């Protein structure tokens, strides 16, 4: 198992738009739908770049591999280094959102208890190399879509009822917001898209990969963006503005507002299940990335390139990401999300640069693309 490539895609779940609602809406001053729309456009351009590079190089490793081949091996190294930062922090952010919701529901329990539970349980499962069956994952994702759909339908009913607020354009623009706030929100919401490029890791097994994979990447980004904008629009209608008692766990209050404690309990259960089951593969992927780096001499082999003799798992690396997880006690959801986005934006930006570099490399060959498609668009 330790030789499999890290797959960021395991992390994207439909629920993310709800669990991050408060923190992101606050940053955008209540214009979350506009923030998601801006992020979607930016992501689509990145997705087009990913699509072009995936068409050229159907190999695993994504941003790192493209930058290495199209630009330079040292630039590729630094892109991989930025991705490593992401994987160090990703489990922590997932645990942070999860424990924020638990703390909101059970304020009498100290927050560190929940963080510690997430870290110990997740790290324990990963150290023993226990993975979840793919079927369980499918069931969980389906359940998330179901609760998400329920959420949207209940919301729409409330908004459209005689004493509801009706449909307005406030989720896109309101008097208290600014272009800077929408942009800051967009910079955060990009987090929800992380992993859309994971489709490219199937490049080596898909049929007719040079044609199908690029299409799949762009479609993934587009569909995700449309769902995010739509859900953000509806939820923002029910809760206008960007002021919350507890932004990190705002969706729980809104769930209670709509349908009372029972629905809030169902919602909370889904959040905890989603965060717990997302944390396991994300931590494993990060530890495997560090293991691959150790094995290939990018990181010191004696520390990072070792597997547990009996369980075959990179125990040291798992313990490191588990230890980073304790930072969840000291950070807010939006601050830690922007840490992740730094690495993600670096990867996205360099994939765009790779496309331009590839265009330059291809000069004088028939493989060269158009200036519009390969230089202006990225």
């Amino acid at each position: 198992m330790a030789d499999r490539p890290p797959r960021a895609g395991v992390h994207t779940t439909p629920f993310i738009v709800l669990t991050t609602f408060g923190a992101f809406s606050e940053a955008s001053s209540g214009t979350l739908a506009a923030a998601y729309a801006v992020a979607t456009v930016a992501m689509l351009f990145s997705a087009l770049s990913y699509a072009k590079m995936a068409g050229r190089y159907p190999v695993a490793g994504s941003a790192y591999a493209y930058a290495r081949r199209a630009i330079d091996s040292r630039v590729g190294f630094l892109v991989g280094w930025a991705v490593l930062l992401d994987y160090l922090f990703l489990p922590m952010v997932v645990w942070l959102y999860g424990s924020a919701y638990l703390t909101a529901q059970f304020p009498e329990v100290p927050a560190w208890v929940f963080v510690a539970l997430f870290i110990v349980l997740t790290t324990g499962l990963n150290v023993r190399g226990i993975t979840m069956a793919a079927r369980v994952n499918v069931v969980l994702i389906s359940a998330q879509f179901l609760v998400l759909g329920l959420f949207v339908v209940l919301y729409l009913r409330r908004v459209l009822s005689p004493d509801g607020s009706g449909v307005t354009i406030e989720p896109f623009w309101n008097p208290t917001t600014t272009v800077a706030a929408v942009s800051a929100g967009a910079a955060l919401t990009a987090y929800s898209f992380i992993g859309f490029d994971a489709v490219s890791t199937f490049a080596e097994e898909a049929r007719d990969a040079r044609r199908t994979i690029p299409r799949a990447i762009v479609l993934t980004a587009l569909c995700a963006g449309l769902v995010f904008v739509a859900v953000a629009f509806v939820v923002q209608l029910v809760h206008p503005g960007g002021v919350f008692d507890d932004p990190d766990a705002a969706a729980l209050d809104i769930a209670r507002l709509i349908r009372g404690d029972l629905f809030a309990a169902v919602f909370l259960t889904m959040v905890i299940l989603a965060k717990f089951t997302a944390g396991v593969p994300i931590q494993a992927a990060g530890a495997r990335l560090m293991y691959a780096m150790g094995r290939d001499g990018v990181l010191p082999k004696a520390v990072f390139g070792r597997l547990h003799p009996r369980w075959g798992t990179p125990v040291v690396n798992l313990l490191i990401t588990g230890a980073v997880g304790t930072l969840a006690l000291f950070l807010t959801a939006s601050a830690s999300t922007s840490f992740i986005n730094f690495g993600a934006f670096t990867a996205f930006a360099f994939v765009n640069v790779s496309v331009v570099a590839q265009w330059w490399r291809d000069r004088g060959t028939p493989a060269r693309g158009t200036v519009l498609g390969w230089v202006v668009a990225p």
Partner: protein
Amino acid sequence: MAWLFSHLDVHALVLGGVWTVLGVVWLTVLTRGFRTPPPELEFEE
């Protein structure tokens, strides 16, 4: 992309900047002052 980058939280830019500098230092060590190519990572499917 650059537009979104510039609207990241200032702490994220500081942390990311420090991480990048560390990466350049480590890359210099690995390549013995850029005289040898960096090791290649293998992602096996």
